[in-house]
């Protein structure tokens, strides 16, 4: 039972971090437009996030240090600050999108305009962070997020031609009527959705919050290699549902209600009820993670006391930053900026910001001064080097692709 409870950090990170508003939207958009021909990106993204989260989680367990501590130590205060600004900007955009996502999910349940929910959602996000113990928070939202498995059930109910789906997924090709740049732009978005930097900030800082040490390395691995692939499978289920129901009708996904449509058509009201619970849990969980991550990053860079372990008064500046970022995120959404659009842009910027944090973590995970026996093994390093190249290429390609395709239009 204890092991089960400990896996919740991974499940929350995966459900509320891997499958967040970004994945819900990106996978449905891509499924409705490209079928499963971009499924390979999800697989590459899952392997990448496993690798990255494993390294930062291991470093956190062994040294007790969060990601941004190490970013500044390895890059110095100036480059570290540039990194902090870029990463925090992306995390903040994601936070705003998640708050909007919770509100949109509540709109689906009530048909009351999502804008009216935004202040309430923002307050609850802050309140949970202020009052709820870390582990309870993980368990509650991780468990509720499992309701998203409705996508998998719906897929099964839709009774697809599995061999055809598999063929699409294993024979990637650009569909007729779509240009290569557009295809690649969506590949970058999906990749950004899978490997969002805040997942790593949260996972490593969460490991410190839970007081992990060297003996928790097994738990750490279990979390990573169970949680993220589970999130990846869910992503694929979302894309497959969209492929089966929305693609043949020529529906382009612009709203969360369209993401839910395949599940509604196959599982009806019960399916929708599960889905809304899942949407709320996943986006709320991700809102918690991103709000905490802005506080974690800034506090770690500046050496402030951070975390939910102690009373808020003991980590005053950390809690002040979290509160302010939640308020600003809600205000951004209240300008009636479409949360789905905010999500789409934050995914691209995620892809740009990734190598900035990836490289320092990779270096520290190899430093025996910090890690002792637990440095990266050969296989991990070989794979990690491949991803370093890949991440760099994607980071440089992301913005030009966005401009060339007018963000995928």
């Amino acid at each position: 039972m204890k092991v089960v409870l400990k896996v919740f950090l991974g499940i929350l990170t995966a459900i509320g971090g891997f499958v967040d508003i970004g994945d819900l939207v990106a996978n449905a958009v891509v499924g409705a437009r490209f079928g499963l021909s971009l499924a390979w990106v999800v697989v590459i993204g899952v392997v990448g996030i496993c690798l990255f989260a494993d390294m930062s989680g291991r470093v956190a367990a062994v040294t007790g240090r969060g990601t941004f501590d190490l970013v500044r130590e390895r890059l110095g205060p100036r480059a570290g600050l540039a990194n902090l600004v870029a990463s925090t900007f992306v995390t903040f955009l994601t936070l705003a999108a998640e708050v909007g996502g919770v509100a949109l999910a509540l709109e689906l349940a009530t048909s009351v305009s999502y804008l009216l929910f935004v202040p309430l959602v923002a307050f609850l996000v802050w309140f949970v962070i202020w009052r709820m113990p870390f582990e309870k928070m993980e368990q509650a939202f991780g468990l509720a997020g499992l309701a998203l498995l409705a996508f998998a059930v719906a897929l099964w109910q839709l009774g697809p031609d599995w061999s055809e789906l598999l063929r699409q997924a294993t024979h990637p090709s650009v569909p007729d009527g779509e240009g290569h740049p557009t295809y690649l732009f969506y590949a970058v978005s999906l990749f950004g959705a899978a490997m969002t930097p805040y997942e790593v900030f949260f996972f490593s800082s969460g490991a410190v919050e839970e007081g992990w040490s060297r003996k928790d390395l097994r738990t750490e691995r279990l979390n990573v290699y169970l949680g993220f692939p589970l999130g990846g499978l869910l992503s694929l289920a979302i894309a497959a549902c969209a492929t089966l129901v929305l693609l043949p009708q020529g529906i382009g996904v612009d709203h969360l209600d369209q993401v839910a449509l395949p599940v509604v058509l196959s599982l009806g009201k019960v399916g929708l009820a599960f889905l809304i619970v899942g949407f709320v849990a996943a986006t709320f969980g991700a809102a918690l993670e991103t709000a905490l991550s802005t506080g974690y990053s800034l506090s770690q860079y500046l050496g402030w006391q951070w975390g939910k372990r102690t009373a808020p008064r003991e980590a005053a500046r950390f809690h002040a930053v979290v509160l302010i970022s939640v308020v600003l995120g809600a205000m951004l959404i209240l300008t009636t900026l479409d949360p789905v659009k905010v999500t789409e842009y934050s995914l691209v910027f995620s892809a740009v910001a990734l190598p900035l944090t990836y490289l320092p973590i990779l270096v520290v995970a190899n430093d025996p001064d910090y890690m002792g026996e637990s440095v990266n093994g050969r296989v991990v390093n070989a794979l990690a080097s491949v991803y370093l190249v890949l991440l760099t290429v994607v980071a440089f390609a992301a913005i030009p692709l966005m401009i060339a395709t007018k963000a995928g239009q």
Partner: protein
Amino acid sequence: MRRLLVLVLVAGCVSPSFNDRDYELKAGNTAKAVASSLSTAILGADAARRHKAGEPYLSVLIGNAEKDALAVQSTFDGVQPPNAAADRLKGTVDDLLASATTGLSQMRIACRRGHLDRLPALADGLRSTLDELRFLAEHFQ
């Protein structure tokens, strides 16, 4: 059927300049976007027919579809047709857009009043518009 005839007429005039081609592409994209909104609403009506969805969800779904279609319509209205052939194309597209947005708003009103049982009939009335929009979208890709 009348609209399809017009379409064939329009398609016969091969556009001579970049401007005309550009206008046709815009018309095609407009048709594609509105067809997507219509399909969404029609699938929603399908769910209503089979009692698979309730009023709150459907009114959000159909309301958003209507909003999107109206936005696309007003963007298209703002584009200047370059010549007489384009004027005819504009007439056809405008017709289709008007019937789509009217239909969507009827669906939204029925839905918000709780008359979910009326949605399937309203949706059926939109299917020919949807077919024509799709034809147009495919033709001017």
